[in-house]
């Protein structure tokens, strides 16, 4: 709904180049525009940011391009896995692209990102290229980890992307360590440590939050809540599914994780907060269309109607 309104509002900047056979003109305008997020932010012990997000037509188009590329990459990975060209574990991110793209739009490459094993799209967002990604998935030397890591171990040091971790939750203390180094060096940058709703129940997260709050580290803990921890639904694993409140004394924000503009706004807000005041928790309400990994059909613990329902309603 928002997207349709958007397309009507984009003015034709100039005639399209003849090479591009588009049905309608594609704008690269950088004129600012303000769009209201579809859902308001919910917050915990902090005032939420405004629902009005500033962007430009050119930025919106890069969002579309990047998210489409990520979607196509994940679907291609699915086919490659079924063809046995990708082996072992392969965790796909389709449905969650807005988190990767919105976050990247709000920060710089000097900020750090660390995530778990659903890392292919974050790698792309951080400037990774498709060839390195697919080469890694297929165990080739040209891969981003020279074929030695695999799907769960994508890293890009020059873009401050710290992976790519297979053990649930273990990346969060690492992320707080990255934030510690940023504070130690007085860098005025922040670290986004991503984890899932399943990992949210790990003790080490609370340990890391406690230390981050005590030492006022610029850590931003981002829960990508896709409502399933592997094969177990959120309500069966978590007594309190309000992950943005789990920080207790640490502020939190709940965000529509399938609205790239909301994600952008929340991440911008979180970075400013973290650099000035210490840790903050972001909960991205999102969904994954695939199962937990390629070994999981994703249909034994949820219905096909639910999956197609999300596709229709949440327009991503």
């Amino acid at each position, binding site marked *: 709904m928002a997207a349709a309104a958007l397309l009507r509002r984009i003015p034709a900047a100039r005639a399209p180049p003849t090479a591009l056979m588009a049905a309608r003109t594609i704008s690269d305008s950088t004129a600012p525009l303000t769009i209201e997020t579809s859902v308001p932010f919910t917050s915990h012990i902090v005032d939420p940011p405004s629902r009005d997000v500033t962007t430009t037509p050119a930025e919106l188009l890069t969002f579309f391009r990047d998210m489409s590329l990520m979607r196509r990459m994940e679907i291609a990975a699915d086919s490659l896995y079924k063809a046995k060209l990708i082996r072992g574990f392969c965790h796909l991110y389709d449905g969650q692209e807005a988190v990767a793209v919105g976050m990247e739009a709000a920060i710089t490459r000097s900020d750090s990102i660390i995530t778990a094993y659903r890392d292919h799209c974050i790698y792309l967002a951080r400037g990774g290229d498709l060839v390195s990604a697919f080469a890694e998935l297929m165990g080739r030397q040209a891969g981003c980890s020279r074929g030695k890591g695999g799907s769960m171990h994508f890293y890009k040091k020059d873009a401050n992307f710290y992976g790519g971790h297979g053990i649930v939750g*273990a990346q969060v203390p690492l992320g707080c360590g990255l934030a*510690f180094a940023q504070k130690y060096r007085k860098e005025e940058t922040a670290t986004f440590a991503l984890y899932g709703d399943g990992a949210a129940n790990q003790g080490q997260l609370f340990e890391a939050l406690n230390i981050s709050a005590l030492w006022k580290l610029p850590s931003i803990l981002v829960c990508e809540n896709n409502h399933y921890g592997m094969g177990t639904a959120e309500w069966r694993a978590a007594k309190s599914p309000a992950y943005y409140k789990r920080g207790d004394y640490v502020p939190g924000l709940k965000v529509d994780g399938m609205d790239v503009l909301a994600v952008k706004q929340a991440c911008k807000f979180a970075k400013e907060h973290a650099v000035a005041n210490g840790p903050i928790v972001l909960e991205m309400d999102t969904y994954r269309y695939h199962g937990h990994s390629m070994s999981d059909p994703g249909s034994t613990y949820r219905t096909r109607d639910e999956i197609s329902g999300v596709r229709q309603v949440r327009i991503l």
Partner: protein
Amino acid sequence: MPMATASSSLHGTAAALHGVGAAASSKPRSAAPVARSVRVAAAARGSGSARARGGMVARAAVAANAVAAAESKSGGHELLLFEALREALIEEMKADPTVCVFGEDVGHYGGSYKVTKGLAEMFGDLRVLDTPIAENSFTGMGVGAAMKGLRPIVEGMNMGFLLLAYNQISNNCGMLHYTSGGQFKIPIVIRGPGGVGRQLGAEHSQRLESYFQSIPGLQMVACSTPYNAKGLMKAAIRSENPVVLFEHVLLYNLKEKIPDEEYICCLEEAEMVRPGEHVTILTYSRMRYHVMQAAKTLVNKGYDPEVIDIRSLKPFDLHTIGNSIKKTHRVLIVEECMRTGGIGASLRSSIIDNFWDYLDAPIMCLSSQDVPTPYAAPLEDATVVQPAQIVAAVEQICQ
């Protein structure tokens, strides 16, 4: 054996040991290229030693100090092992602003074994960090900080507590360099006291070197004297690899005179404690002292044991060990690890693989019993290798 007498007797023997050790090790060695630890050539104080590999220069410098202490004005200074560790920390933290210390009670309290006493006042709360009791996360944070270019030293108040951080140590600390295709280095030092103490109970008497030894990507060393404690600590901090430095609860008050000038010990080198001809005794950490006590008895009985403190638990210094075996043809390993899956088990296996043809007798390995360490003193003593057992083992091997 009360440690008070041990500390004073060590002082006497240490100088002699080092003097003897230096003489034995002054033979030129074509050692395999050693990894990235920086070598600080000790300023030659009239010792006239050639610029050989760093470790040897260091030993030569020590020999010069120990033997010529009376002649030289600054003939070294005497300190306890925990002070030697502390000196190493202070020197490295002064030289490199990225070095920082994480641990429980390391800051304001000064460290539960006083290794970090005074450091928080000297370097501030951002470099000497009192962590909450959360080993899993603060070890992980140390690894994360190392990924971003700092050089953290993570202290386990007792090494046993680091079992809570096993995942971080194995998967992140040990493996990230590999899984990232070489992009990240983890120049972290993980250190702390372990081993069997005085009736500390089973959970506080663990030997984590046996648990960590299989972790790929991790380097392990064990210190046993003030001299090698300082040298190994400095080398570990400078190393680009993750290093676990095993200290021992009962060795912190050992006293020794160490050089005034800067030195480091090579992480991958073993230490020749007492050269001999009849049998090679390989040991490390606290068992070194049980071995040396047994050596006195053995010498009186006419035996000439060669004692090597292996120091480098991973990788083994097979060069030094091999040269010894080629000379004596008999090996006794004396360790504090439990029998099953200990350092001795791996060392035995390595020796069989590499030096089988040089052995005239089966390799003997004396280890602790495969039991939780009891609280009652006589029981505790019975689970750990005692000097009398070492004497009996040598007599058996040398038959």
